[in-house]
């Protein structure tokens, strides 16, 4: 040992290696980047699965994929987009941004944070390894309804790997959520009271709280399903005394809060972007913050609106209709406040703003179609049809994914220190906006015409064909938009312009530090006296100059 004493210790070598430093990092910014890039890879994978489905449905009686493959495609697409894209990409953006926005040096538990990321990657690998399992990938839908998902009807290990993967992802999200809660509660900069916190941080607070409440229900349901499949229990097997309906209750008790877990951070992003590009403060800060909490609370009282056709007693259907409609009220409050924020502004239509405004239009449609399906007699017609597919994609693609793109374009300069190309950003926005509407709007009509979801083909003439073809063309246009974004990223990586600390003249603390920030984030955090600390600084600076 003495002979080698001049060599640096292994830990130092590892901490500086190009690859090993990423493998061992506990820096929230690096973990955030790992989360974001991994989620984007899964986004491409899930998107390819969707394109295969749209190709299969482009015309009636198509034979591009087999029946079983089609069922695997929609199961993997849904599971991927929800568990491997939207939830973790918010975890990634939250990881990167929350400590910076509240003026902290890192998350509360950096090592736990690293564990969350690596569990997420492991969960994703387990899910995708199911393509190679005996009996193929899982094919009971992302909802995995029993008894179809029981061993008797879906043999093979695809389902078991699906359960294992979701278990691992649940642990990852739970650890991440607890980390967010502690960070937000304990590590805010001096002066940053709750009512001076950026609205994105508010949304991550509720995101994390909902994960903590909802995930155990999923874990319980999955454990029972796994025991049924592997240990001979019969929780969900009616012929042996179990209850098929129990699975749906447990699943949706998790599943509906999950919807708001995916959309609340999106609303948080929009609440950050719109004021900055309107050159105004957010209209009704308190109303938006409290409506986030209200949506989070009510999201736990609406799960059975996914079950209006299972034969619930009338009074329960009435209850779940009203609770679902109540959620429309805080949602409306947000939309009206965003509109009012643009009023008498100095609107700059940079790409983040375009995606945020696109979000408002599309999310309004998704929210309004939610009122249709909340009215339970109409839902008896729409449930499990393409009307619901349209509704959920308006909310999750037009909502969550558009906000993800707004966030990526907005914070890219901060995260990577380079400006994305504006012209390419705008082309990609318009392709995605037009493509998204062309893909998903005709699905409302398909649903009203009686097309159920999850069918691998159809033999119906007339309008079914036109709408399906239009939808497939739209999915192509949308993919072009995403390719343009990918090209934009590569081009910026090679030859993008350097970003200054605060290219958008924004309001929040993450723009106070350098782009990208140093490992310790801030040399000194200013005392926070309002929800717009950076604007306060700029004004003080201007006054001292004058």
């Amino acid at each position, binding site marked *: 040992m003495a002979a080698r004493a001049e060599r640096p210790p292994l830990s130092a070598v590892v901490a500086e290696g190009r690859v090993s430093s990423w493998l061992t990092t506990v820096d929230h910014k690096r973990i955030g980047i790992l989360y974001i890039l991994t989620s984007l890879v899964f986004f491409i994978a899930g998107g390819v699965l969707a394109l295969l489905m749209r190709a299969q449905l482009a015309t009636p009686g198509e034979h591009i994929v087999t*029946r079983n493959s089609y*069922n695997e495609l929609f199961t993997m697409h849904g599971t991927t987009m929800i568990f491997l894209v939207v939830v973790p990409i918010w975890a990634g953006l939250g990881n990167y941004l929350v400590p910076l926005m509240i003026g902290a040096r890192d998350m509360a538990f950096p090592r736990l944070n690293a564990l969350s990321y690596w569990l997420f990657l492991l969960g994703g690998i387990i899910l995708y390894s199911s393509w190679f399992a005996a009996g193929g990938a899982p094919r009971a839908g992302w909802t995995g*309804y029993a*008894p179809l998902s029981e061993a008797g*009807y879906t043999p093979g290990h695809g389902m078991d790997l699906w359960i294992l993967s979701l278990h691992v992802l649940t642990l990852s999200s739970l650890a991440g959520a607890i980390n967010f809660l502690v960070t937000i509660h304990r590590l805010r900069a001096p002066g940053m009271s709750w009512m001076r916190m950026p609205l994105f941080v508010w949304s991550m607070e509720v995101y994390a709280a909902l994960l903590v409440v909802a995930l155990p229900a999923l874990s319980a349901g999955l454990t029972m399903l796994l025991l049924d499949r592997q240990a001979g229990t019969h929780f969900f097997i*009616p*012929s042996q005394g179990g*209850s*098929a*309906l129990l699975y749906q209750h447990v699943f949706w008790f998790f599943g509906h809060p999950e919807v708001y877990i995916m959309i609340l951070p999106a609303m948080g992003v929009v609440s950050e972007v719109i004021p900055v590009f*309107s*050159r105004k*403060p957010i209209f009704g*800060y308190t*109303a938006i913050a409290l409506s986030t909490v209200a949506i989070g609370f009510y999201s736990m009282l609406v799960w059975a609106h996914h079950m209006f*056709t*299972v*034969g*619930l*007693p009338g009074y329960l*259907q009435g209850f779940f209709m009203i609770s679902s*409609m*109540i959620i429309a*009220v805080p949602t*409306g409050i947000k939309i009206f*406040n965003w*509109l009012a924020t643009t*009023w*008498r*502004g*100095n609107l700059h*239509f940079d790409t983040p703003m*375009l995606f945020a*405004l696109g979000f408002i239009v599309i999310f*309004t449609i998704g929210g*309004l179609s939610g009122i*249709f399906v909340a*009215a*339970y*007699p*109409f839902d*008896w*017609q729409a449930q499990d049809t393409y009307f619901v597919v349209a509704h959920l994609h308006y909310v999750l693609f037009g909502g969550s994914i558009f906000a993800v793109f707004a966030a990526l374009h907005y914070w890219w300069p901060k995260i990577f220190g380079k400006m994305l190309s504006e*012209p390419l950003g*705008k082309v990609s926005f318009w392709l995605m906006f037009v493509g998204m509407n062309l893909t998903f*709007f*005709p699905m409302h*009509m*398909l649903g*009203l*015409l*009686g097309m*159920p979801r*999850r069918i691998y083909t159809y033999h119906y003439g007339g*309008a*079914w064909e*036109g709408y399906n073809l*239009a939808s497939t063309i739209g999915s192509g246009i949308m993919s072009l938009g995403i390719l343009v974004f990918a090209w934009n990223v590569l081009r910026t990586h090679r030859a993008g312009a350097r970003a200054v600390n605060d290219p*958008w*003249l924004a309001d929040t603390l993450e723009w106070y530090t350098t782009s990208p920030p140093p490992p310790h984030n801030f040399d000194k955090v200013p005392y926070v006296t309002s929800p717009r600390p950076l604007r306060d600084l700029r004004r003080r600076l201007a006054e001292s100059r004058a």
Partner: protein
Amino acid sequence: MPPPVRRSAFVLSVTLALVLTGTAAAGNGGLAPPSPASPNAASIRDIYWLILAITGAIFVIVTGTLLLFIFRYRSKGRPRELEGSQVRGHTKLELAWTAGPVILLAIIAGFVFWKVSDIGATSSLPDSQAKGAITIEGHQYYWNFTYPNGAISVDTLRMPAGRAMKLTIRSADVNHSWWIPALAGKLDAIPGKLNHMTLRATKLGTFAGQCAEFCGVLHAAMLAHAQVLPAADYDSWVSRRANDKLGLGKETFVGVCAKCHGLAAQGGYGPNIAQNPLLGDRKGLTNIIRHGTGKMPAVGNDWSQAQIDAMIAYLHKRFAQGASGGGQG
């Protein structure tokens, strides 16, 4: 955005809108649920129109305002440093756009409760009251209908026009969902649970639907029809069907076997069975129908002996003409 991009985006969206409207007008639309053939479906359509009117107005107001503000307050070359009006909120406005939606939603909910009392649909009736109902049983991948006199049909439900019928919906294996859009909303067939629906068809004709809850590999093939007959025709059909072994046998073969094995038993998703010696083996055939084998589900796990006999008789007649033994018909 640069003007050429804006113009081409505009042209593109107008073209797409025209294409879509054209498609909608060419087919039977999809702009509303299908034209109703029962008071149930008519009530649901009324609810749809009311919500469409209210949400349509909200959409026009929201996007109209947004477009107006986008146009009116665009920067027009003003520098980013120039701030807009620093207004932070307005309590009365907040209250107004909280109360407004509450009122509109209350109107919708009130209308729904009013209409739903007409529908009298899914509440679970005690079994004693459901006697005389048509039992609709979902199977992988067909529908089995049992009428009050014991008659059976497969995939095509016969209903009398103008007479309120009780439908009892159940499942023999996994979750399915019974749905004929022109007649009523869907109601799931869930194993271990009986669901009930009261339905009065008012229009004659055959109405299409299909299983709406994903139920396995051939979910897409699980089509259904409801044939609404004049009441007298229905009564005579039901009493005829009770003794029509070959009719039931044929329907059973087409609905149950042919979806996998082909209409001529030539094979498809399942193997070719036209020459299968099992077709002549009454005991073996009964066993495979009752319990399934390999990938084949237990399609007839709860069939009556009459239905098994009817199918065997039909298979015998169709695929083993002249051979002896097995069928009785």
